[in-house]
């Protein structure tokens, strides 16, 4: 059976890289081997006040994993999912104390919206009062209702699957942050609370007051169910100084007395970056799916594990193909799908990209199926997009990684390549790094 033009269109939508996997798309979620959501869920039994950081490559599925964790926990816990990028205008400016404050606000909103439980006015008042002394000399005026409405909860989908987290959340932010826009969704969100607090030191009385206020609210939520806070978005911060300010040089993110899980940037996988953060967080590294035997000597990996990795990625593709009523054998005429899986390096977003390009090329050629040649064209297209930004320094670093299995840690190039997905982490219990396989041909060994 040939794939029709209409079906190619459906497939293109199913593999649209700009469509984030929401909880409402639970049918599309594929649990990867060694998934961390279950590990955290299990650890929570023993560490009720634990603090976790889920770090991994951009596009590796951290947000999806966090949403999945919310889904696992929602029956036993009061899941408070704080979607920071949709709450503040400039997440790169956010201060640790502001994250703490927004956790309290998210708890108030979640209690009201998800469990119809009103947090006491006294507790809310205490939270806002605690923030005031931290505002420094800015002219920022606290507008409680605006801030309450402005917080975006991704866990809203847990309670109401299919509600459309993004629209709902941004709409709330719009109402709160964009009063001046008269009902329009403000695509440039002026943040009411974003980089406006003064620098604070651990143990400072004003900070302690804020911590107490947040804890009081979480305690009130606990009368419904044990709260757990999931904070998504800190992984989007690119500047090392900002990352360190949040996770290493301050302990503020670990202050709430209830459990919190953050998504964090991949640089926290580097030993040097993790050193200081390790004393306050547990690190969950969301590595990429292993799809091929590693080149590095000393890395043992069973065929079963590699096969399991490939199978999980095949499922990712198959579930999306099914949206158009198709299966893998119908769409892929030969081993094109294997090429895509292997070349993706197990990075989910790149797998989606590759299939997306494959579908587009097949459509343009009016092909009845994806052939190996079409898949190769797609790989070539994506490879060029990586290579266009390569230079000698980057190639040198990739060669080092290929040889040593870890970034050199020299200068900014290691974090730069990690953040950009040029270097991918893998795990078999031990973490190792490899250059993205799409670049491997151009990377010599040192």
């Amino acid at each position: 059976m040939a794939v029709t033009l209409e079906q190619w269109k459906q497939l293109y939508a199913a593999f649209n890289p700009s469509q984030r996997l929401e909880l409402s798309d639970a049918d599309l979620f594929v649990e990867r081997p060694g998934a961390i959501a279950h590990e955290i869920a299990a650890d929570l039994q023993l560490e009720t006040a634990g603090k976790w950081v889920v770090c991994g490559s951009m596009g590796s599925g951290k947000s999806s994993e966090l949403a999945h964790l919310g889904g696992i926990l929602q029956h036993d816990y009061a899941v408070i999912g704080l979607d920071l990028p949709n709450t503040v205008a400039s997440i790169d400016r956010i201060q640790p104390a502001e994250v703490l404050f927004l956790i309290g606000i998210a708890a108030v909103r979640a209690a009201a919206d998800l469990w119809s439980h009103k947090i006491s006015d006294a507790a809310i008042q205490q939270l806002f009062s605690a923030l005031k002394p931290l505002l420094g000399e800015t002219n920022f005026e606290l507008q409680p209702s605006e801030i309450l409405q402005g917080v975006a909860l991704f866990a809203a989908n847990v309670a109401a699957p299919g509600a459309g987290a993004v629209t709902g959340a941004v709409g709330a932010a719009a109402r709160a942050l964009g009063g001046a826009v008269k009902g329009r969704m403000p695509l440039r969100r002026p943040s009411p609370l974003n980089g406006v607090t003064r620098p604070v030191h651990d143990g400072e009385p004003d900070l302690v007051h804020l911590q107490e206020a947040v804890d009081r609210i979480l305690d009130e939520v606990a009368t419904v169910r044990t709260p757990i806070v999931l904070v998504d978005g800190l992984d989007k911060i690119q500047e090392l100084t900002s990352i360190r300010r949040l996770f290493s040089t301050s302990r503020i993110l670990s202050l709430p007395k209830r459990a919190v899980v953050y998504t964090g940037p991949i640089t926290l996988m580097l030993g040097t970056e993790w050193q200081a953060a390790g004393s306050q967080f547990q690190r969950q590294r969301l590595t990429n799916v292993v799809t091929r035997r590693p080149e590095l000597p000393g890395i043992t990996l069973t065929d079963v594990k590699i096969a399991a990795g490939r199978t999980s990625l095949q499922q990712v593709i198959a579930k999306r193909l099914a949206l158009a009523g198709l299966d893998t054998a119908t769409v892929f005429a030969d081993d094109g799908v294997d090429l895509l899986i292997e070349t993706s390096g197990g990075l989910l977003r790149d797998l989606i990209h590759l299939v997306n390009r494959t579908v587009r090329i097949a459509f343009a050629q009016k092909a009845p199926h994806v052939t190996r040649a079409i898949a190769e064209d797609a790989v070539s297209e994506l490879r060029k997009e990586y290579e266009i930004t390569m230079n000698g320094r980057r190639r040198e670093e990739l060669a080092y990684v290929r040889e040593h299995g870890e970034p050199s840690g020299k200068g900014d190039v290691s974090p730069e390549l990690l953040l950009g997905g040029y270097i991918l982490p893998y795990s078999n219990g031990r973490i190792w790094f490899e250059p993205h396989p799409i670049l491997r041909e151009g990377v010599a060994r040192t």
Partner: protein
Amino acid sequence: MNEGARLPPALGPIAEVLALADSFALCIVTGPRDRRDSVYLRLTSSLSEEFELVRHRLDRDGLDFFDVLTGGDGIHPRVVFISGLERMSDATRRDVTVRLNLLRDSWAPHPARVILWLPAWGLREFRKLAPDLFHWRSCLVPLHDADLPIGTETEYLVWACERYGGARESGPAPVDAIEIRRIADGHRTIYTGFSFMERNQVLRTVARYLAMVRLQAEGPADLDLTSRAGDVYQLEASPPLPLLLDAADLAGRLPPDLDWNIITRAAGIPLSAQGITLLDRANQEVLVLLEGIDRLDLSPGTPGGNLWEWLDRQRHLRVVAFVATYPPLPLLGWTRRRPLSEEIESSRASGAPPDVLLRRLLHDLFPRPSDVFLLMEHLFGAEVAQLLPAEPLDARTKLEGLLRRRALIDAGFFEQLKALRPAHSKLIDFVAREYLGAPAR
């Protein structure tokens, strides 16, 4: 202008994405710095029947995308072409890029397709500062000049402006001989026998001027270039050219239907419309003003053609630049074959104010009726409606009547003109000096 509708193959992936996507999709196009108009032109030429293409310039329209992402005719899917990062300072560009990344999620709910133009040199920075947005791309199209072949006159003119445009350039850009020939042939400006560098300078000026004027008059309205009309005037700074020539000889060869004047360069440059600067036999710099020369028939055998052929033969002459900085404007009160300096002198001798000069100044600086109304509003404020005579006169006549009636032509008046047209302060000072007998302060 006759447009072709075939999309260059290099832009094919964009057309494929647009054909397939039924919701938000992002395409990124990178290429040589100033080719964004060329890309946009080709997209509109070939896709405008199926899609509604609109532009959003980050440097001008900012980061509020709501209107542009949500608007539309409801029939054709909207495609938003975003550019402008390349026109920002480094610090602003970096900040805006970070903001774009953080605004990403608010784009997705809208069905508009977005095509983002990035200069090739900005791609790495963009990928670093906006990694999430970059990951959303459905395709990345890296372009080179060769990927945008020129097939229509508009494409050619846009290319000429992109290539030769940019008032901030210093020094002539290298031009290869074939391109020079194309410009020369295309616009019948016959300049042979000059040195290569001289010819570059001349042709760059001529090509840019002609292309800009044509585009403003006939090109698509939403090209970046058309909003840069002010750049044309920057060419005033181009060195006028001493052309060693017998002015009398030249004057005898000028076609009879050409308005021309020979005046001293000092007097002429501030008023220069179109013309050639010469060195006369006495080694004095003179400016031959040739109004309307671009409207002359320059075909071989015609008076205009003969003139250019004759100029072409003056190979011993050193032409440094061709002064053609203003769009051609009809000159009110301009007397053929009467030097402007004489006109000024005769005005002074009679004791009457040099109305001719002033009328010409107003005409040059406020050529369109809307410009005249702008000036009137500036001068008379809210009263303008009451002051306007009811007779069916054109705007310019009404303005002149008002000025006469209210005796407003004083130093303050010229200062107001300078406030409205600061780029022409020198010209206004010149006329003020002649009109008032002292420079405008």
